[in-house]
């Protein structure tokens, strides 16, 4: 038995912190996507924007409405305040809070209060026409609530093992969500690789960047001239932007290494998996990626991310007891 460590972390606690973080990241991502979409819709005729709903549903892995009937009121409701949809914002925030509530003694009081406040705020919102008109206030509150929680977490919780699981959850979720979003755009939207996009499609690509909070950062790097190839490069391979796939995978890898060190536990499998993924992303050339198809590339990223998730689960959260007792 390993008694050298001076801190202990229950597997269930680690699992809860991991999922709390994933759910909160998911809520924030969903809020940003819908907000961006509703804003873009104001600049477009109702017909132009309709294709985007399908991309949105695909990117969020949300259930498609029956009979294919789509209107923004229904969809917005399903994705935000519908408690029966387990991936709606309200469900994600509630799930994040429930996970944190089960491990309250592990987080700082400030963290719990912040997340509880966000939950109470989201939960007191009721869907109505008036609410829909000013829904941007709601989406901003969710985003800010999530950001504030991250800030509070970073400045009030020890950056030890528990904090690393929170990092892990956030960036595993982000890798998956951003990869899925890129996939949805590149498989559904017609584009030519390296030409500036035409005016009516311009808004769509702005939408993709804004959905990753990346528009301003993109402009700084490439100017406001949007080319699908550059958009893909920025969101997939940029090493400095916090919502890019590569940045997220770097963080996942770092958290895993830290955890392996802290627990003094062999974690070859997930460290190797994420290490390899990290290497792939840092040495990929965007031309090659696009040549073999952006969708296939992000699909493979998601696959490896999923494998890493499964490996983490088996090593830290749900290991076989017999083997432990034998060692």
């Amino acid at each position, binding site marked *: *038995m*390993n*008694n050298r*460590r001076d801190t*202990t*972390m*229950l*597997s*269930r*606690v*680690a699992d809860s912190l991991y999922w709390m973080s994933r759910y909160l990241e998911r809520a924030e991502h969903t809020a940003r996507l819908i907000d961006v979409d509703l804003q873009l819709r104001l600049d477009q005729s109702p017909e132009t924007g309709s294709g985007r709903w399908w991309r949105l549903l695909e990117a969020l892995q949300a259930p498609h409405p029956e009979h294919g009937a789509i209107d923004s009121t229904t969809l917005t409701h399903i994705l935000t305040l519908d408690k029966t949809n387990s991936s709606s914002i309200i469900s994600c925030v509630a799930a994040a809070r*429930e996970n944190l*509530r*089960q*491990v*309250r*003694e*592990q987080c700082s*009081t400030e963290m*719990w*209060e912040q997340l*509880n*406040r966000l939950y*109470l705020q989201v939960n007191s919102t009721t869907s109505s026409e008036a609410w829909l008109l000013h829904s941007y206030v709601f989406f901003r509150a969710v985003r800010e609530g999530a950001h504030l929680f991250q800030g509070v977490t970073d400045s009030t919780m020890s950056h030890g*093992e528990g904090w690393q699981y929170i990092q892990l959850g956030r960036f595993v979720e982000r890798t998956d969500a951003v990869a899925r979003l890129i996939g949805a755009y590149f498989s559904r939207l017609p584009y030519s690789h390296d030409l500036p996009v035409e005016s009516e499609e311009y808004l769509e690509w702005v939408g993709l960047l804004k959905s990753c909070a990346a528009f301003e950062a993109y402009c700084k790097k490439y100017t406001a001239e949007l080319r699908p190839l550059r958009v893909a490069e920025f969101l997939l391979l940029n090493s400095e932007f916090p919502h890019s796939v590569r940045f997220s995978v770097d963080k996942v890898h770092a958290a895993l290494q830290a*955890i392996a060190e*802290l*627990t*003094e*536990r062999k974690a070859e499998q997930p460290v190797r998996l994420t290490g390899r993924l990290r290497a792939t992303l840092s040495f990929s050339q965007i031309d090659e990626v696009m040549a073999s198809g952006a969708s296939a590339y992000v699909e493979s990223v998601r696959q490896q991310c999923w494998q890493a998730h499964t490996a983490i689960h088996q090593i*830290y*959260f749900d*290991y076989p*007891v017999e083997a*432990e*007792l034998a*060692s």
Partner: protein
Amino acid sequence: MPHSRTRTRSFLRPVPIPESARSLLRPPFRNYQFDLAYDEMFEGPGLPRPHYQALFQTLLELPPEEMRKSQQAADLSFLHQGITFTVYGNDEGTERVFPNDLLPRIIPNQEWRKIESGLTQRIAALNLFLEDVYHRGRILADGIVPRELVYSCKHFRREMRNLTVPRGIYVSICGTDLVRLPDGSFAVLEDNLRVPSGVSYMLANRKVLKKVFPTLFRDYGVCPVDHYAQALLATLRALSPHSSSRHEPTVVLLTPGVFNSAYFEHTFLAQQMGIELVEGRDLLVHDNVVYMRTTAGLKRVDVIYRRVDDDFLDPLCFRRDSSLGVPGLFNAYRAGSVVLANAVGTGVADDKAVYAYVPAIIRYYLGEEPILPNVETYLLSDKSQRNYVLEHLSELVVKAVGESGGYGMLIGPHSTAEQREEFRLRILAEPRNYIAQPTLSLSRAPCFLEGEAQARHVDLRPYILYGENVTLVPGGLTRVALRRGSLVVNSSQGGGSKDTWVLRA
């Protein structure tokens, strides 16, 4: 059991205040009511007791608007912190904030010292009693406590026979309910020897009050309570079976989980003590050793502060349908490799029928007179006492012996004819299962309600720890029956709480 037959219901009626005293009642006390119950704050209308003088003065000078704002801020802070409890049998909004009242209840040091020595005496005697009934049973053989009373108790655990517990301590965490009688003396209403709760509210109330009345608090010289968690940890460590052989005992708090009504308290205490909060599914038993499943592998557990009832601890030994417990835990406990606090089977000593014998128990083991008296109690298994009670149901309080939390009670003066008939039938069916007590006029203390001070009935639950020695954190939880005229202080029945200030001098 001796009992007097003169009792009165008139204390429930307000006492008219003479016109001459009316002028003494200034806001926020203009509508403050008096009855025959002891008033914690006032000797008479407009005449505060010496130790309440400073608070009284502060309240006269404080604009009610200020108080209302403080109350709102306090409520909001409780909500945001999630200091809530769960109400069973209520589908929507199962989490509720535990109402907190801002006016402190003040206890002079001298009174506290008596409470302290009385409770210390009581916990010592009750532990000796438990040790005795689970071993030789001298007190039963000597006929002090009837054998059938102990063996018919539903919390008596045969499995505990001849099992030796560390230091002979069965009850190391205890919360005793005290009430103040009309003559101003304290009496014990109930011993909670299984899994008493509420201590986190004591600590949370104190935190809030220090913000609301900082100067008043300082000037009063109030004994601190913040060291409770530390004292609890020391108590638990003192019970460890391996304290010498290994460096530091691993102590955990076992909770039934997030749906338990006291979950907030479990997380709070675990955090304050810096120990792991575990659920049954986090623990496993192998070769009579208890382990918890951590990210770094399995880790051995030495002491379990369990907040799970006996019945649910181990599905192999007690209730088979329990998913809250740990299979094999009781065997590991019997083998002495792990300690449970409190021990299994302590409920036999807080059975409400055994309660009636506690004064005799104290005399038997300690050879001393009880410092704190009991409340007079009728045992319904006794024929003459039963007949008396059945004739006077509308004046008495009837309680089920094994229940707690204010469930399974009949309050005579507040009951309907149907309720009394229902209890009459229940008593006749199972007399051992019930006791009766006179309807007590619990003392009253001012609470800030609807923008003014109003008198409400209160009790007091101090918390007693017993490890290397007996520790009482000065104060405890003052519970308040917030509904006008109500005598029930339990949180599950519309009660609230307030901070308790024990003065240093």
